[in-house]
């Protein structure tokens, strides 16, 4: 059986929660896969309610930037580790979980 890695993810829904919480997920660990792969694994197999941005998956679009172990970074450019803590970009308005307002544009 594959080793599992432990991923602690910041969860926050401004509409319903007063304060952020941390949720822990266990994802099969594999060298050569990225933090984004772990997020997509959670989305596909564990919890569809976790929100994060994603697009090119290879570090070119830069829409997915988050905090990984306290440092801002691109989850497609960081390999998975056995223990990780993921949070949203600092100094940005959190829309939900790891999704922040990047470029407000027109408001609706």
């Amino acid at each position, binding site marked *: 059986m594959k080793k599992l890695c432990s991923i*602690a993810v*910041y969860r*926050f*829904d*401004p*509409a*319903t929660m*007063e*304060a*952020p*919480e*941390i949720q822990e997920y266990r994802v099969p660990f594999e060298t*050569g*896969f*990225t933090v984004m*792969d772990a997020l997509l694994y959670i*989305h*596909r197999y564990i919890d*569809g*309610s*976790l*929100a*994060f*941005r*994603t*697009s*090119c*998956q*290879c*570090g*070119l*679009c*830069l*829409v997915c930037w988050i*905090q990984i*172990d*306290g440092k801002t970074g691109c989850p*497609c*450019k*960081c*390999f998975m580790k056995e223990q990780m*803590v993921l*949070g*949203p970009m*600092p*100094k*940005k*308005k*959190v*829309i*939900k*979980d790891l*999704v922040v*307002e*990047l*470029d*407000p*544009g*027109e408001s*609706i």
Partner: protein
Amino acid sequence: MEILLTLFSMPSALCPLPTVVNGLPELNFSTHSVVEIVTDVLIIGGGGAGCMAAIGADRSKNVSVAIVEKGVIGASGCTVMGTYSCCAALGYADPRDNPEVHFEDTFVGGAELADQALLTRFVEDAPLRVLELVEYGVPFEKEGGRLKQGDMPGHTYPRACFVGNRTGQAMQWGLRKKLRQTPGVKRYHDVQIYRLLHHSGTVYGAAGFCRKTLTPIRFVAKATVIATGGCGQLYPYTSTSLDNTGNGISMALDAGAMLMDMEFMQFNPVCYIYPRLIGLNRTQTRFLRFVPGSRMLNRLGRDFVADTYPDWKHSLTRDKLSQLIYQEVLEGRGSEHGGVYIDLSQSSEGDIEKALSVGNFRKKIKKMNIDLRETRFEVGPASHYFMGGIRIGVDGGTSLPGLYAAGEAAAGIHGGNRLAGNALSEILVTGTGAGQAAANYAAVRTGAVPDFSKKTEWEDWIERLFSREKAEIRPVEMKQRLQEMMWKYAGVKRIGTGLKKGLAGIADIRLSLLDRTGISSESMPYHMELHDAVETRLMLDAAEGILTSALLRKESRGAHFREDIPYSDKEWKTNLVVTREGGSLKCEKI
């Protein structure tokens, strides 16, 4: 938990609590809660083609322009992933080059199926649009005051303009900057559009919802441009971005527009599957096959490509190599993650260095501490570019008044296959063309707008999704099932009986998605399950178009390979068009 939270510099003031009115927010499509936005021109899609369309439409000073994107305008989509070449016959590197030669190269490369009028406009306008991008500050590489132009396979003369190995990203960033400096264009990020507003064969805008607030939105527009890209995500192995789900193609089909060349999906044979190569798009491993001594091995360690084609490295076309690898994996001899191995253990350091001297591949690989001679990459064919899409005229107009299309969502320029380097320039030409034509149409269009306030089956379905919270089937499972089925039946190799199974599979998935799939009603903003559900439902239409066309085309041509009819037949040297008639699709020769 508190300790973990302190890891993030997250002042609470930056996480404001929104005002919650009447309890939890919910997606409500009753008339009063829908936000209506009126604009002259609506652009759907915020990649390269969409940005060019918005900038082009804004040149008509008397029209209002709105651009809407399900992700982030100027970042999401496939344009940023373009690596090297943006081809235009500027004739700088070789004065013999001109649009006519570019036409011939593209026409021959596309199995002689390209629309000649569209192609003429493309080759003539590409140089102008590239120079327009230079004005916007895109730093194309220069030599002696003029743009450098590099060689690309299939092109007679060097005509690839480039910004290192990140041309697409540089182009997209330049366009994003230009768009931000264009105050006439209103930008709507994070808005998922799912259907066009149409009445008696005329299009009046589109309906969707804001992903951030889940507010239903109705864009009422005099002219609508679809620039939503292709549908590479119909396959599990793809070099495209996760946004490339063909939504616009499906919405156009649903509204009654004519699609064309739907059987032509280009597969790139040597895309990496494992490990991930940071900062490199999936096609970048394609150069590895040209390294002297490289071998392509199956799970049993056999150099299976050399067994069939001893001189495969240079002689084998992309199509043939894709077919061989696809067959190897299908027959159970693939690698752990679903590809085959490319092995450089018998190559010398010098050969590797020499063969990979162009671009940033070597640098990035070194940064990842990967030893190319020790690491066996798992590679395989992946969907890369969709030649089919919405049928357009020279100005980007579709078969429906009020509807225009541009970029990968539109068909016709490439025919049955695409030459490398023609995608990044094509989005510029068709984007500008469609944007300007839409603005001209909007400026003179008069007449009352029908009442679109009534809910349709789409809104009923979305509301039903929430009511089936405990349903066992989640949308993402449906999406994966569709992708796997398309790979098996409408992938690199197709066969008549398989395509029929694929069509039956579509019907099954549609039924499950419409009647048995549910999503959680918790955590409403940025609802990824709802996003999956909407995307998957739209993907089904594009997939059905591909299967139907591939079944009708009883020959192999361009990127379409029928294992049961592995030859071309002059009877089929024509385009196939697809329209929706009631519940089924009608496909016929043009």
